[in-house]
């Protein structure tokens, strides 16, 4: 009835026709305008702060500084509790750790007054020497967090006295021995940048007190339940007095996983009793939320002469900026979602430090370490093939993971803790690879075609894996209610941020209930009204939340049958979505549901399902691109990008396709354009769409995605995740294509034409 159908997104037409649906559209018109005074220095202490003049303005209702807000430590991270991220910040702090850190919060009746009041706050700063270079931050004499009360909830390798937000190491087998016994060893160093999410809706939160004087927070978040918990603990406000809900969200990609303006608007509303709204400027989104973790990745690969990969060793230095949100987990995913691709090795090494620096913090972003790791490993595999004198496809096929195999890495590395042993029950990576090679016509195009004297066309390829939720951590839950006249309400904690999860969860329920998807209304992610869900992150919604919906719906079928047996007074009935049958008698679901609501053995049927994964089945893909490059300038264009994907069953093939196409283009942006630069004093230069170049519709000739048939036994109707994997391959694909064109290995993202030109000059 519901699954594997390309039906329209339930909210789609209303959104395209501009109906009021987002936080800004539904906030109270009389809400106070909230703005934040931000630090002009990369590292400073507030010596004095005088808010008198601002407070004397009649339009200004409230000014917050570190002096009048609770001083509890927190992490913004928005992860399961207790979080694997350090509690290393306060709502407002006397110490300012990057350009853009919050100094004071002003709330007033209109924008102009608030902007004027920001200027009237008198601050004197003690300016400190910052740590800006992440490669020298570890054990640097300047400490970003030393002795400021920062702590970890459990061991995450947090050593603030060494500027380490987190650190981790593991080894399987004997890495050095395996390297020394390898016939060919490749060593390389790779750099990835602090990509920005660039979601179209800037972060926005609104708070108000309802008639019961409970704090209501409407917010563009991926994690309403985490936001409620963080507000409660940080502001010493009882949980029962807080409701957090999200309306429609204008994109997130991880950028709205953490808490942002919610604490400020909550405080303003609690102090003034008035509604308050804080809408980030685009500059604040770039400068003062967070980015992807920039990384330096050292890879060593060892193989025997016949191309048997013996060892992978990875050492990572990750830059978390001023605060350590997702520091440990992004680091670990860089290994756990790449190393198992090549599961037949004798030895695996993985070590990493996540350092504090005085720049914009890093946090969750689609790909979440996997894209960084993939760039390094998949670039290195092509280099190893080169050293072996072997075709890189043959090398991959010989060593990559196959269905019903496992990797010790699954067991050892989880997210912030040990992993979960897992046999891969669905893996069509071999088919993905063959399919992508055929569609791009690899054999005729590899490695390059000289188009004319200056122009080369070449191809590049990479493979990737991701996960489906965090096993034994993430819980999703769902509730189904049968109404009179046979219609259902599905309430889920899962947070639709534009992916279409409300729709695909309804499709899963419809499939089990055997009713049309239209018969199911969905309401999601409201801490008062829906069951719990960790939220939209870690590629979890289809698999984790989807399984919870499946369970709730299976229970509902049993409930319908129970009521049917009672109605007919028989021991057995059958149900087909439309009727309940007892022998030759039958009653429609419409009639039975109406009877039990109004007149016969009245009762409300409602079921709940919750699900925690015992494994995280990886989706797999192969990506390949054809590029055209000018030898004189290094300028290149991606003519087409092919992706062949195993994400299990596509619950909604249209929405899965757009997830892939969108993920690929974000990956292409990371590979090619999205540059992040700071001034010598630590100010982010790329803090507007003028300076930060996201791909437009002009950049790519064609993106062509194909789903390879696959079925994951543990997934709802065979589904795995599809939200993140698309972003993983483009950086390595583009780098490998450039190598195939010009013979230079580009090891730093983004790969800019001028850097290619310089690399050519140096060879």
């Amino acid at each position, binding site marked *: 009835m519901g699954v594997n159908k*390309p039906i*329209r*997104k339930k*909210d*789609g*037409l209303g*959104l*395209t*026709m*501009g*109906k*009021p*649906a*987002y936080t*800004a*559209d539904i906030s109270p018109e009389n809400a106070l305008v909230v703005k934040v005074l931000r630090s002009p220095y990369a590292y400073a202490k507030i010596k004095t702060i005088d808010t008198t003049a601002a407070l004397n303005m009649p339009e200004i209702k409230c000014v917050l500084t570190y002096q009048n807000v609770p001083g509890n430590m927190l992490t913004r991270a928005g992860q399961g509790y207790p979080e694997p991220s350090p509690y290393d910040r306060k709502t407002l702090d006397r110490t300012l750790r990057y350009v853009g850190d919050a100094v004071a919060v002003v709330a007033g009746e209109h924008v*102009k007054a608030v902007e004027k009041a920001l200027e009237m706050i008198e601050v004197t700063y003690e300016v400190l020497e910052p740590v800006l270079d992440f490669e020298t931050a570890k054990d640097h004499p300047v400490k970003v967090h030393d002795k400021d009360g920062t702590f970890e909830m459990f061991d995450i390798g947090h050593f603030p006295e060494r500027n380490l937000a987190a650190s981790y190491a593991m080894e399987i087998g004997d890495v050095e021995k395996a390297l020394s016994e390898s016939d060919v060893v490749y060593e390389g160093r790779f750099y990835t940048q602090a990509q920005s*999410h*660039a*979601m*179209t*809706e*800037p972060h926005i939160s609104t708070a108000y007190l309802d008639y019961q004087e409970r704090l209501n927070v409407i917010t563009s978040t991926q994690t309403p339940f985490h936001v409620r918990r963080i507000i409660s603990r940080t502001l010493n406000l009882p949980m029962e007095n807080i409701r957090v809900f999200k309306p*429609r*969200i*204008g*994109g*997130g*990609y991880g950028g709205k996983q953490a808490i942002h303006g919610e604490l400020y608007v909550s405080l303003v509303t609690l102090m003034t009793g008035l509604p308050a709204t804080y*809408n980030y*400027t*685009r*500059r604040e989104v770039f400068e003062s939320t967070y980015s992807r973790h920039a990384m330096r990745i050292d890879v060593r690969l060892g193989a025997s002469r016949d191309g048997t990969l013996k060892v992978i060793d990875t050492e990572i230095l990750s830059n978390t900026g001023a605060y350590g949100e997702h520091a440990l987990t992004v680091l670990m995913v860089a290994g756990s979602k790449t190393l198992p691709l090549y599961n037949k090795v004798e030895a695996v090494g993985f070590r990493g430090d996540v350092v504090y620096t005085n720049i914009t913090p890093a946090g969750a972003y689609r790909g979440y370490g996997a894209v960084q790791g993939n760039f390094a490993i998949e670039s290195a595999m092509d280099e190893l093939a080169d050293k072996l004198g072997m075709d890189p496809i043959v090398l991959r096929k010989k060593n990559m993971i196959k269905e019903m195999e496992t990797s010790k890495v699954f067991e050892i590395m989880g997210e912030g803790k040990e992993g979960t042993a897992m046999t891969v029950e669905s893996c069509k990576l071999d088919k993905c690879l063959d399919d992508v090679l055929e569609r791009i016509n690899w054999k005729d195009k590899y490695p390059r075609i000289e188009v004319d004297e200056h122009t080369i066309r070449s191809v590049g390829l990479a493979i990737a894996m991701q996960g489906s939720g965090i096993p034994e951590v993430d819980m999703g839950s769902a509730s189904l209610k049968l109404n009179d006249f046979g219609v259902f309400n599905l309430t889920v904690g899962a947070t639709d*941020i*534009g*992916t*279409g999860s409300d729709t695909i969860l309804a499709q899963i329920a419809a499939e089990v209930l055997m009713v049309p998807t239209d018969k199911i209304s969905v309401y999601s992610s409201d801490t008062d009204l829906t069951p719990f869900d960790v939220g939209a992150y870690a590629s979890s919604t289809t698999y984790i939340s989807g399984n919870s919906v499946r369970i709730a719906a299976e229970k509902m079928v049993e409930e319908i049958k129970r009521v049917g047996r009672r109605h007919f007074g028989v021991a057995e009935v059958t149900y087909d979505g439309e009727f309940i049958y007892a022998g030759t008698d039958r009653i429609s679901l419409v009639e039975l549901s109406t009877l039990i609501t109004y007149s016969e053995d009245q009762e409300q049927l409602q079921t709940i399902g919750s699900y925690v994964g015992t494994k995280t089945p990886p989706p797999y893909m192969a990506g390949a691109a054809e590029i055209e490059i000018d030898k004189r300038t290094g300028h290149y264009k991606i003519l087409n990008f092919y992706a062949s994907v195993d994400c299990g069953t596509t619950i*909604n093939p*249209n*929405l899965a*396709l*757009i997830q*892939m*196409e*969108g*993920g*690929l*283009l*974000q990956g292409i942006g990371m590979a090619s354009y999205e540059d992040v630069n700071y001034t010598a004093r630590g100010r982010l230069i790329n803090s*507007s*769409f*003028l300076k930060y170049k*996201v791909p*437009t*519709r*002009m950049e*790519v000739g*064609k*993106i062509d995605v194909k789903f390879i048939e696959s079925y994951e036994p543990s997934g709802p109707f065979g589904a795995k995740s599809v939200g993140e994997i698309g972003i993983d391959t483009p950086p390595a694909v583009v780098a490998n294509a450039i190598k195939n064109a010009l013979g230079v290995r580009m090891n730093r993202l983004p790969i800019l034409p001028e850097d290619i030109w310089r690399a050519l000059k140096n060879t």
Partner: protein
Amino acid sequence: MEIVLTVNKKDHHVIVEPDEMLLDTLRRLGYKSVKKGCDTSNCGICSVSIDHKLVPSCSYLSVRAQGKDILTVEGLEEEARLIGESLTREGVEQCGYCSPSLVVAIHTMLEELKQPTEDEIKHYLAGNMCRCSGFEGHHRAIKHHMEVNLNGSQ
């Protein structure tokens, strides 16, 4: 200062600041389809049609819009529904935040270029940012809209 704005053929007498941008005035008047994206006229998400030209309303003074025909998606009615159905048929609206301005942009494009080629479509809409979709679905949807809704072929 009081001005008269003609939005979707309806006159509004409205008091604006001399430096007020049309985006803020339109939202204040209840045209919530007009979204704030970047503040610097780069993303196109606040786009409206002014005298049949696509304009980023975040960088257009409200006082300048006096006497001009302003069109938002609320004023497109059936055409917005048809374009919207073409976009949602592909699932390409995703988060939907850029969609209302894209619908206005497609309308404006089809007023100006009766049968645009794929290349012309890409050029015309280059200023309309979308971070969710990868754009391919937009182009499939526009093709469908032109073939089925405008030309009546299947």
